[in-house]
Structure formats: structure tokens, C-alpha cells
């Protein structure tokens, strides 16, 4: 790899990292605003114009709070939990193709930090490690609510990962590749995968909600039964990390959803506008982010609409509903592939 490439990649890495954090930060703000609007309220509007400084104020508040490590907690694991949750949440951004290829002075720069040929598997790996953060934190707290929360988180993740993986399998049957870049490349124009895999998309979407621990599947936190679930004993910025990781996960999930099912950075009709190649790439990235934001909005919209599932309902939905559906989806996809 040349020095130029390396520098470009490092810049890109930092950019992605900062953008991820920024988006997560403002997701907390957006969440509160969306919640407020859906409930006919105004939402935060005191810190800065329209309350835009609210996330900063929240951050400062989190830092100022007393950091408590319970006496009977396993210290090392207790500290590790939030860090793992945060790290794995950030790691997934590496393989998302944020845009096409920029052409700067005759050299091609890809707006993807690295294109693994097993990109899809990498996502699953990271998501699977992410649950360790919750597990360790919940277990190390030495608190029954925290333990219950983390046990729920683990079993929920395992159940839903299966259906998710199967939904993706059907997608991969169609695309024939595990590389995210290739999957996006196939979705030029209106050839978005959602039109070919509507059932798979639905399954993936529901599983994405479960994987990010968001309502209606926020069983691990479940304030009304488990106080705060796995982060009951956490305070100060450690708690902040957990909450923040959840928002990063939501951002990344939206990015993955947009990549896999909504054509990634492809914009229909853009090629007819006769713009220069670089402009198209930039607009593509912009369009990709618009898709992501719409999906994030959808995540929030659902959260403030649907009440939380009961735990047995959750398991029933996962094992008796989504899993067979995913199998049927694979079967149909395979059949269509053979017949066409």
C-alpha cells in the first residue's frame, strides 16, 4: 500500500469514527425530540437553539456524576463491560461502504475503509462480541437485576441472530457474494434488494431491532421490571458508554440495512443527470446518509409506537415465527434462483 493510500485510509478512519460518534450523539437528541413530538410535546429546547447543545449538556452531566463501582462487583470485568460494548459498536463501521470511489488526481480512492470479502460475516462477528459487553457488565455487577438483564440480552441475541443470519443467507443466495462492496454494486439504479427480498428484509429488520436491544425488544433494560437491566449498577460515564453504544449500534444497524437492502450509496437516476464522477460519488454518500437517517427515524418511530414484548412472546416470535419464516424465505429464494 502506498503512503498516499495509507494517509487517506487513516483520515477516512478518523472521519468515520468522528461521524459515528456525532451521529450517535445527535441520535440521543433526535430520540428525545421524536419521542416528544409523537407525544405532542416539544422536547429539549433549552440548551442552545432548539436544544441543539443538549447532547453536550448530557455528556457533561454524565462526566460530573459520581463514578461508583459496587463493593462486591468484579472490578476488572465491571470496567471492561462498557468498553467492550463501545469498542465493538464502533468497529463495525470499518467495512461499511460509505461511498463510491473518488478520483483525485488520477488516483482512485475508495470511500470504504476496508473491503473484506467476508464483510457480512464480520458484521455478525462484531455484533456477537458486542453481547459480551452486556453479559460481562451484567454479571460483574453482582446484582440480580443486572444478571437477569444480561441473561435476557444473551438469549435474545442468540435467538435473533439465527433468524438474522438465515435472512442474510437468502440475500447471499441472490447476490452470490459476502463482500458489502459487491452487494452494493449489484444494487445500481432501482435494483434494491428490498424489492427482491421483501420477506428477508422484514425478518432482518425485526432482528435488527432485537439485536440493538431497542423497543419493542428492549427486554435487557426493561425499566419496569429490571430497573435498568444490565446497567442497573452503572453510573457516570460508564453508564453513558452503554447508552451511547446502543445509539452507535442503531446507527450501524441502519447503515447495514441501507447497504444490504436499500442500495447503499446508489441513487436512482443520478447517472442521467450528467454530473462529474466525483460529484456523483459525493452525492451518493450524502444519499446514503439520508437513507441511514430515515432508518434511524424509523427505529425511533417504532420505539414510541409499539409497547415492549413480554419475554415469552419475544422468544416465541424468534423461534416459532421468524426462524421458520427465514427458512421459507431461503427455500423460495432458492426455488426462484433455480427456475430463473
Amino acid at each position: 500500500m502506498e503512503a498516499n493510500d495509507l494517509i487517506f485510509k487513516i483520515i477516512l478512519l478518523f472521519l468515520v469514527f468522528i461521524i459515528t460518534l456525532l451521529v450517535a450523539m445527535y441520535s440521543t437528541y433526535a430520540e428525545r425530540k421524536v419521542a416528544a413530538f409523537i407525544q405532542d410535546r416539544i422536547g429539549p429546547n433549552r440548551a442552545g437553539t432548539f436544544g441543539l447543545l443538549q447532547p453536550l449538556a448530557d455528556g457533561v452531566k454524565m462526566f460530573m456524576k459520581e463514578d461508583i463501582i459496587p463493593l462486591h462487583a468484579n472490578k476488572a470485568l465491571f470496567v471492561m463491560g462498557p468498553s467492550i460494548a463501545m469498542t465493538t459498536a464502533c468497529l463495525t463501521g470499518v467495512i461499511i461502504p460509505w461511498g463510491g470511489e473518488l478520483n483525485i488526481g488520477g488516483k482512485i480512492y475508495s470511500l470504504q475503509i476496508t473491503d473484506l470479502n467476508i464483510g457480512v460475516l464480520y458484521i455478525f462477528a462484531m455484533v456477537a462480541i458486542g453481547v459480551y459487553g452486556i453479559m460481562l457488565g451484567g454479571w460483574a455487577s453482582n446484582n440480580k437485576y443486572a444478571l437477569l438483564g444480561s441473561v435476557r440480552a444473551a438469549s435474545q441475541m442468540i435467538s435473533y441472530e439465527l433468524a438474522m443470519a438465515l435472512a442474510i443467507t437468502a440475500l447471499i443466495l441472490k447476490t452470490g457474494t459476502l463482500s458489502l462492496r459487491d452487494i452494493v454494486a449489484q444494487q445500481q439504479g432501482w435494483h434494491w434488494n428490498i424489492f427482491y427480498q421483501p420477506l428477508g428484509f422484514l425478518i432482518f429488520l425485526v432482528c435488527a431491532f432485537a439485536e440493538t436491544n431497542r423497543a419493542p425488544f428492549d427486554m435487557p433494560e426493561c425499566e419496569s421490571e429490571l430497573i435498568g437491566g444490565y446497567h442497573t449498577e452503572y453510573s457516570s460515564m460508564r453508564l453513558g458508554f452503554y447508552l451511547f453504544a446502543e445509539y452507535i449500534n442503531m446507527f450501524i444497524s441502519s447503515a447495514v440495512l441501507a447497504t444490504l437492502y436499500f442500495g447503499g450509496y446508489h441513487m436512482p437516476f443520478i447517472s442521467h443527470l450528467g454530473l462529474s464522477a466525483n460529484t456523483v460519488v459525493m452525492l451518493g454518500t450524502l444519499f446514503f446518509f439520508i437513507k441511514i437517517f430515515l432508518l434511524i427515524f424509523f427505529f425511533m418511530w417504532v420505539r414510541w409506537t409499539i409497547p415492549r414484548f413480554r419475554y415469552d412472546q419475544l422468544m416465541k416470535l424468534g423461534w416459532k415465527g421468524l426462524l421458520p419464516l427465514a427458512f421459507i424465505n431461503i427455500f423460495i429464494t432458492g426455488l426462484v434462483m433455480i427456475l430463473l
Partner: protein
Amino acid sequence: MESLTNRSKVTGNKKMSFLEWIYLPAVVKGLYITIKHLFRKKATISYPEEKREFSPVYRGLHVLKRDDAGRERCTACGLCAVACPAEAITMVAAERKPGEEHLYREEKYAKVYEINMLRCIFCGDCEEACPEEAIFLTNRLVPSEYQRNDLIYCKDILLEPLDDAKRIDVSQRQTPAVKEFKKNKLLFHNK
């Protein structure tokens, strides 16, 4: 049974139809309802800038009234403290010295008069108990504070200002019957 509003639905453990069972139509319906609310008029009143209208008999922050000559009406009889169900009122009585007649109406007055706003339930019983028409609840609000101590209000906050312009009008709180009664200047109470 006749239903009152016609909005209730008879439910039971009947078997769900397929559409109900797959849950999605219900989800979509719910999403439609919430998205409609996104564009509704907001119910919030942004408090310090906008104020909600209060009824004239709203029971908010108390005022210790002065009479027309600017003398404190309270005679530290302690009836309000006895009437208070929340035991929010404390006072220390003192005797009026010669030469203080322009300050206090009766020979005895409250040197210290405290209401603990954290205890007060704004029931208005003190107002009702007072024989001197010295204490009234008003339609002002008790602001929030950072320290508990700051919510124990003393006379400096409770007492009505002397300044005519800053007098606190409580006439709205009096019923026509009371107003009629007050016209009768012969009664000792109204002197």
C-alpha cells in the same frame, strides 16, 4: 349493557384472525397513529415565557397581608399553624412596643413567620382558619430551588410589600357574601 361512550369494545379470548395473528397490520396502524401525532399541535406551555392562565382562586404562594394603613394584620394567634394539616407553619410571637403602632395592627405580632413550602400541600386551610384575614393563598407560583433551606419561606418573602403599586390583590378570592359582610364596619372584625 348500554355503554356510556360507545367506544368500548367487547373483547374476550376469542381466536385471533390471521391478520391479527401476524401482528403487522396492527403495527402499521399504530405507526400511522403516531406519525399523525408528529404533526399535531403541541400541548406544551413553555413555562417562564408563556404562562397558563390561573383561576383567581388558585391556591399558590401565600401572602401575609397588610391592612390599608400598611400595618401587618397577623397577630400571631397560631390558628393557621393549628389548622395546617401538613404542619408547615411555624411562628414566634412578639409584643408590640410603644411607637410600633404604624407597623403592627394588634399588640401582638409574628416576629418570625415561616412556611415550609416543601411541606405545604396548598390546601388553603390556613387562609380559612385565620380570623384576621392576614394570610391568603395567591395565584403566584413557588419556584423550584436547589437547596431545601431555600424553600422555607420567611416573612421577607411572604409579607406583602408596603409599596401601593406592589400590593397583592386578594379581593378576587372573596365571595360576594364575604364582601357584603365586610361592608358592615360596625363589626369589630372589620374595623
